[in-house]
């Protein structure tokens, strides 16, 4: 009997390659990939946005693990850093690129200069530069849509990591220009109301939500673990150029 809710660790645990490439996670990722393929036989889904309601649900890890699974299956996959406010993929891939998505959109570099290989078979990476002004403007731009269209010709899958929906409009904007969106939900972490709000936002933005992914599924315990511990995310979730988040919706409403 868990009469009292346990306070969980409020630290944002950064994704690691070791976890994302572990057997259990890779097994889950290939199942997810198969389900994505099944979900869209008529109109193939090539660009997929990975998003979640609140921070720390595991978007990046799952996008990364799925990319690895695509690469393993012999197809080419591009991972795009769509969270321009707090980049995390570059640390995961452990690469440093000179150019990123902003330079590519504004025509300041070539595809070869912006997209880098990652050392993982079939997995390529397109980073976002530090301090991109108004990420939502870029994501909503025709240039971004065109860029994805061009990239689709070169890669089987383009997986885009996005910020949480309840914090910024970025995810909904990205979802609107991708073929499919996957909502990552972390067990014993995400509030039902936040999930409902996120789905509403995605649908309002005309996103094709393929389905959900349950992260951190703990088969052994059925305890209650929800707490308002993603507040900390907002406090250090300022944009690289120092501006504050535009949408404040979300968090634990009481």
């Amino acid at each position, binding site marked *: 009997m868990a009469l009292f809710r346990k306070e969980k660790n409020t630290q944002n645990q950064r994704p690691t390659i070791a*976890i994302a490439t572990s057997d259990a*996670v890779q097994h889950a990722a290939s199942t997810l990939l198969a*389900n994505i393929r099944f*979900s869209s036989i008529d109109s193939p889904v090539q660009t997929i946005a990975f998003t979640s309601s609140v921070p720390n649900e595991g978007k990046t890890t799952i996008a990364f693990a799925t990319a690895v699974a695509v690469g393993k299956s012999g197809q080419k996959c591009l991972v795009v850093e769509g969270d321009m406010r707090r980049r995390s993929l570059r640390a995961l891939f452990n690469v440093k690129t000179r150019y990123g998505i902003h330079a590519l959109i504004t025509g300041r570099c070539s595809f070869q200069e912006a997209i880098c290989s990652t050392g993982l078979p079939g997995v390529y990476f397109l980073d976002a530069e530090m301090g991109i002004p108004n990420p939502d403007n870029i994501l909503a731009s025709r240039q971004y849509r065109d860029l994805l269209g061009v990239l689709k010709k070169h890669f089987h899958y383009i997986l885009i990591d996005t910020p949480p929906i309840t914090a910024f409009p970025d995810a909904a904007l990205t979802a609107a220009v991708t073929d499919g969106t996957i*909502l990552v939900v972390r067990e014993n972490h995400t509030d039902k109301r936040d*999930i409902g709000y996120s789905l509403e936002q995605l649908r309002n933005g005309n996103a094709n939500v393929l389905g959900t992914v*349950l992260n*951190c599924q703990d088969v052994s315990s059925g305890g209650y673990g929800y707490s308002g511990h993603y507040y900390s995310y907002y406090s250090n979730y300022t944009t690289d150029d120092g501006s504050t988040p535009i949408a404040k919706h979300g968090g634990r409403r009481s």
Partner: protein
Amino acid sequence: MTLLELLGLLRKHLVLVIALPLIAALIALGYSTFVLPRVYSAETSVYALNKTTGGSGDAESVPYQELQSSQLLANDFAELAKNTQVRRNVADDLGISSLSGYDVNVTSSTTTRVIKVRVTGPDPELAARIANQLAAEVGETAVRVMGIEAISVVTEAETPSSPSGPPRKLYTLAALLAGLFLAVAIIVVRDMLDTGIHSDTDLEEITGMAVLGRFPLAKGGKH
């Protein structure tokens, strides 16, 4: 919430479902045994002879109306037993200040004209004396005002040797059921207030969408 879900939920919190009724029952048992005062019941039964049929001796052909009237008679008896004048007379006769603390219960079976007067109170001897005195007083009044031929006592109330109450079994059972109800209520309300996601079925239910992937809880880390 379907019944199946409710059962599953109850099974998940089986400890509470079992422990709470048991604790409540134990408390009720202890309370009724050690805290509540013991009460004793003394019972006397009287027989009412109605004037219209009295003396006919035709027991085999008691008309239906009369059977019904025996029930009415019992009701009248009960009403008389509540009468303040009657009660004061009984108290005066027994030399006590009032009948407070003594519960009077008048019953009769529908098929007989035997009326039972049961007095329940803390003192066994006094309960018996009140029962007898009350039957006599009520009978006297009934003869006087209701036109009844006579009230004869069938059995005198005897001093009860063992207590009749408090009804420990009843209280314990009631507490058991109340505890069970409370446990179920707690579990259901808490489930309703719980806004977390605890399984893929939870997730499917809320979103109405397929769960495409299930990633395990990584060992040593949360991601």
